[in-house]
């Protein structure tokens, strides 16, 4: 089974800190995605990448950036963390030819900004 591994399950950071959330997949998937999940709002797409060094904005990119230097790794960066970025962050990956049934998600990182 493909695995998507997120480096931390829980993180607590202070307002203004630069925060890195790391995601690694082990099945050579071209596409990688970052979502955030908040109660009552479902999952919202922040950024995605369909190739190394390529990135595209999702629905809510403000306050975030991403980095994809290697195919297996996709990092989400909070340049200056704020309390409204407290959320569950989910990483996902898929093969380029696969459709909506081929996404694999990580277990999530619950980030609290204080």
């Amino acid at each position, binding site marked *: 089974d493909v695995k998507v591994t997120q480096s931390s399950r829980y993180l607590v950071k202070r307002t203004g800190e630069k925060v890195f959330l790391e995601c690694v997949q082990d099945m050579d998937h071209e596409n990688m995605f970052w979502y955030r999940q908040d109660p009552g709002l*479902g999952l919202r797409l922040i950024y995605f990448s369909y190739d190394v060094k390529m990135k595209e904005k999702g629905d809510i990119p403000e306050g975030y950036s991403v980095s994809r230097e290697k195919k297996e790794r996709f990092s989400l960066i909070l340049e200056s963390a704020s309390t409204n970025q407290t959320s569950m962050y*989910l990483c*996902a990956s*898929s093969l380029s*030819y*696969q459709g*909506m049934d081929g996404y694999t998600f990580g*277990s999530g990182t619950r980030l609290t900004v204080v």
Partner: protein
Amino acid sequence: LAKTTQPISMDSYEGQEVNITCSHNNIATNDYITWYQQFPSQGPRFIIQGYKTKVTNEVASLFIPADRKSSTLSLPRVSLSDTAVYYCLVGDTGGGSQGNLIFGKGTKLSVKP
């Protein structure tokens, strides 16, 4: 991707069949209907996908009427472990940069003993 509408929550008891309906009035010709399941503290996982009529796998069945403006996920004889949020997604299965999953709020299913 087509917008979907699902009930916010549903309650059931162990052993019952649960049907969750999703409305997608603006579904396009090339769109498929896909359902994901999410347990607490986990990421979503794929459970079933269909285009028309009926699809069945070891987990669920998916019923899609001829006009494809709605679909129903059917979970036979649910157990406590089926307590989860179920998401209905509609879109093209082309993948790549066009294949982003857009989730709605999902349906929170609570199964009681």
